[in-house]
């Protein structure tokens, strides 16, 4: 490195020193100007005229059904809130406010104390929510003597149909402390706490805007400085059809159970019902402990979404699976005859048919139409339950469907391996028998059953059950469609499928068929009844009289020739599937075909 004397550089250092001194002088003069010459002015600004951002909450996205009918809305309400920092004499303000809006001072102090650990300075604390016009007017009129008190407009969530579809819609509640820590949501903001309100919360929520106001030393607004508009939440268009949903809710009535109706060609859910239901309107304003306890402790668990969270033995609806597995294996031919004497013996054990007198000799078609247990014991044994179990899994039973709702249950398709691990006992022929007719360890959810019958209807396509059809940004108006998501293609042997479909039509139309209750003049229905045996459980709810009745199942699609809708119904403790569940499906079909004629998809 060649180096010469630094002398010439050092000659220029005074320039650098001069620059530094110039910087210091400029800053000093400016500081003097701000702090000495105008110090009093800025001091007043800081002390008395403070700028305060007031949050403007965004309206949450509206939820519509597939035809654009609103099913979740917002209602503008007013809350009276207090910003304690803005009240020079807080006690006096509390006393006056309490007298004015008829709230005792103690509960105001309590509200302030409750909010203290989680609020930031100048965040308003809600004192009285959803006040009437009189209270708003009173507070506005006495604004001068109520420093720190503000009226906050809020978009309150409203579910106009009450308990309708409440399990899929979910509900909103005040943001919890944990959520606040996690994603810095604002105090008092409503967030989805269940159902689609939670799944799509990020879309629905929107973003707050703010209004800047200048306030004076007594907390009064002296000037509006400007406004930054809130971003409203995105609107959702669901796949459900309000009419079909209403019909299904009504058909199920007061009985506990679930209905899932879907378009087998897209996976779009047309109706999803779980009863008993709850009113989501209880939640947005903060549910009372009494209401919460009665929901939580109710013996029939109204918060439970039975359509996706409850799993039941599929009963005779599973004969569809056993039948398909047996026929596809080639081991059982459709014309193979089985004679039912009302029971079958294996070793010391006797396995009965539901018809004690026996069905006589029958082949596959009549076996399914009359739902003969002995027929399915026999073919189940011949093909082996392992083959049936594999088939069931391929049909999506015992696995999560991926419906966009929380806490879906998978259910169970038992295997010998599973049983050994679980009960330390080997798989007996008896296990094959009872599993072949859908009893025993088998557990499926209503939505899985709907998907299974949907696959039979559409020829083996699997779609992820879809609840969201499209979204619409309320500001830009841009619409985003969500196309069907094809999950899998299940290849049926066409001959076997034809045999099955013809038998399913027989169930609802032939003499001796178990599904007559679903017949309707609107379309040919193909379906299968089921009755899931209820093993008495030793829990506290034993006192319920209906407890011992079996669960009634019905799975079906229509029109049989070119299916448009697939339905799964379960009525808990409803008794026989043909009598209790099939008529529910009938109502759903009728409403669907009736309104399909008048309404067009958007």
């Amino acid at each position, binding site marked *: *490195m*060649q*180096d*010469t*004397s*630094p002398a*010439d*550089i*050092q000659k*220029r*250092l005074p*320039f*650098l*020193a001069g*620059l*530094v*001194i110039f*910087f*210091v002088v*400029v*800053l*000093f003069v*400016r*500081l*003097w100007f*701000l*702090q*000495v010459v*105008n*110090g*009093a*002015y*800025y*001091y007043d*600004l*800081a*002390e008395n005229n*403070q*700028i305060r951002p007031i949050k403007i909450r965004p309206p949450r996205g509206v939820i519509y059904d597939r035809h654009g009918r609103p099913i979740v809305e917002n209602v503008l309400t007013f809350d009276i809130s207090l910003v304690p*920092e803005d009240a020079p004499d807080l006690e006096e303000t509390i006393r006056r406010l309490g007298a004015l809006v008829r709230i005792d001072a103690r509960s105001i102090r309590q509200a302030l104390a409750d909010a203290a650990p989680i609020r*930031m*300075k*100048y965040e308003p604390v809600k004192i009285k929510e959803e006040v009437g016009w009189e209270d708003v007017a009173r507070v506005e009129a006495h604004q001068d003597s109520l420093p720190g008190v503000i009226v906050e407009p809020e978009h309150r969530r409203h579910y106009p149909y009450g308990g309708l579809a409440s399990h899929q819609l979910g509900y909103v509640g005040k943001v919890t402390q944990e959520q606040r820590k996690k994603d810095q949501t604002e105090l008092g903001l409503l967030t989805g706490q269940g159902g689609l309100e939670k799944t799509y919360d990020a879309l629905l929520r929107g973003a707050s805007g703010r209004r*800047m106001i200048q306030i004076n030393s007594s907390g009064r607004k002296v000037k509006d*400085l*400007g406004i*930054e508009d809130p971003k409203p939440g995105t609107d959702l268009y669901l796949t459900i059809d309000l009419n079909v949903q209403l019909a299904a809710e009504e058909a199920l009535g007061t009985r506990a159970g679930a209905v899932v109706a879907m378009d087998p060609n897209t996976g779009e859910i047309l109706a999803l019902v779980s009863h008993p239901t709850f009113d989501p309107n209880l939640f947005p304003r903060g549910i009372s402990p009494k209401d919460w306890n009665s929901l939580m402790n109710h013996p029939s668990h109204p918060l439970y979404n039975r359509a996706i969270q409850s799993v039941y033995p599929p009963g005779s609806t599973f004969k569809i699976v056993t039948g398909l597995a047996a026929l596809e294996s080639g081991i059982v031919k459709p014309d193979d005859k089985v004679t039912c004497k009302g029971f079958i013996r294996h070793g010391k054990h006797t396995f009965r048919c539901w018809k004690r007198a026996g069905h006589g000799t029958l082949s596959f078609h009549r076996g399914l139409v009359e739902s003969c247990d002995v027929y399915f014991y026999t073919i189940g044994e011949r093909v082996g339950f392992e083959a049936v179990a594999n088939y069931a899994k391929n049909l999506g039973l015992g696995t999560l469907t991926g419906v966009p709702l929380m806490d879906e249950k998978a259910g169970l398709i038992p295997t010998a391996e599973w049983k050994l691990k679980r009960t330390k006992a080997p798989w007996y022929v008896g296990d094959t028998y009872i599993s072949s007719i859908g009893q025993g360890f088998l557990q499926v959810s209503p939505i899985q059953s709907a998907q299974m019958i949907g696959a039979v209807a559409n020829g083996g396509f699997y779609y992820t059950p879809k609840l969201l059809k499209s979204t619409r940004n309320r500001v830009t108006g841009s619409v985003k469609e969500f196309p069907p998501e094809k999950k899998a293609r299940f290849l049926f042997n066409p001959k076997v499928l034809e045999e099955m479909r013809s038998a399913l039509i027989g169930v609802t139309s032939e003499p001796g068929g178990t599904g007559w209750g679903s017949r309707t003049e609107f379309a040919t229905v193909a379906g299968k009844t089921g009755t899931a045996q209820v093993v008495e459980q030793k829990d506290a709810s034993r006192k319920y009289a209906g407890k011992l009745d079996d669960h009634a199942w019905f799975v079906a699609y229509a029109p049989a020739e070119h299916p448009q809708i697939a339905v799964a119904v379960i009525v808990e403790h409803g008794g026989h599937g043909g009598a209790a569940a099939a008529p529910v499906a009938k109502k759903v079909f009728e409403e669907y075909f009736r309104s399909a004629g008048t309404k067009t998809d958007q």
Partner: protein
Amino acid sequence: MQEQKLTSNIPWGMIGLIAVISLIGLLGVYSATYSSRGVSSIFYKQLMWIGIGMVIMFAMLIPNYHTIGRYAYTLYWISVAMLLLVMLIGRTGMGAQRWLALGPIAFQPSELAKLAVALSLARFFSSNPRPGGYRLTDLGWPAAMVALPLVMVLKQPDLGTAMMLLITSSIIVIVAGLRVRSIIIIAIAGITLASSVFLIPPVKNTLWGSLKPYQQKRIKAFIDPASDSLGSGYHANQSRIAVGSGRVTGKGFGQGTQSQLAFLPERHTDFIFAVIAEERGLIGAGFLIMLYLALLLYGIEAAKNAKDRLGALMASGVVSLLAVYFFINIGMAVGVAPVVGVPLPLASYGGTAIITTFLSLGLLLNIHSKRFMLFY
């Protein structure tokens, strides 16, 4: 000649100044981040960074500054590579992509780049002396050296760093020695360019349009803060109110209403000076400015006593860099510089800035302490 003991030449006065400024800054961070939940973890992090910084500063005394000078280009390329990495995988914070995540630590390569450019210019000019001053044609390499990171930080976009790179480099070039004719040519070219930017509408519109909306707003707000007291002018306005309301004696430690009530954004980072000025008044803020002045003059003294071009140029480079930091940051707080996001050396919260500052100061100490040595 016998080497003197290392410690005997260490400028303890300068170290004392550094310690006092760090302490004032740390107290400012404490006050700015203190909340009803108690002392913020930011305070402890800042304490930790200052501790690490001090160690690095003393470590910088060990090597010969010629060794450091030899690595100037290496440091330059490392920081260019990191800037490139930021463009590719960087983390976005506050609208600009400036951060590089290194495990749990977020690193801001633009801070390092500023120091690297200053040192590389020092290295270049010391090994390419031109008695009689540099001509414009001699400035090709240095210009390229500055332009590369400049373009990269503009892409982020980081207007503050770009501005600092330009100003600091200009000062270094002038100190390194530019012919008077060249200075005049640059000045004329600069004025012509600037006026054409402002006076010829198509040029103005293209340039103006290439800025991000928030940058446009900030520039407008700098020219006329009252025009937008809520949006972009908010920072500048609130900061001015904070500083002004401190008056002569200040509101007292922890008593600044502007700072404590969170009217002032970025108060523990870019606006730490406003917090100090509000709470300590003209007396405290003026004292702090004087401390910075003394520190910078110490640095210039190191350059003045350096025994070779490299030492003199590195010291002047570091001093120019720190001086520009100091001026733009405080200028931002008091409203004589646009709000561009430049930290106050030793005081603003931020690991990368603190470490880079101590690194620079260590270098100054090194040059200062070696001034009597003739052989290396």
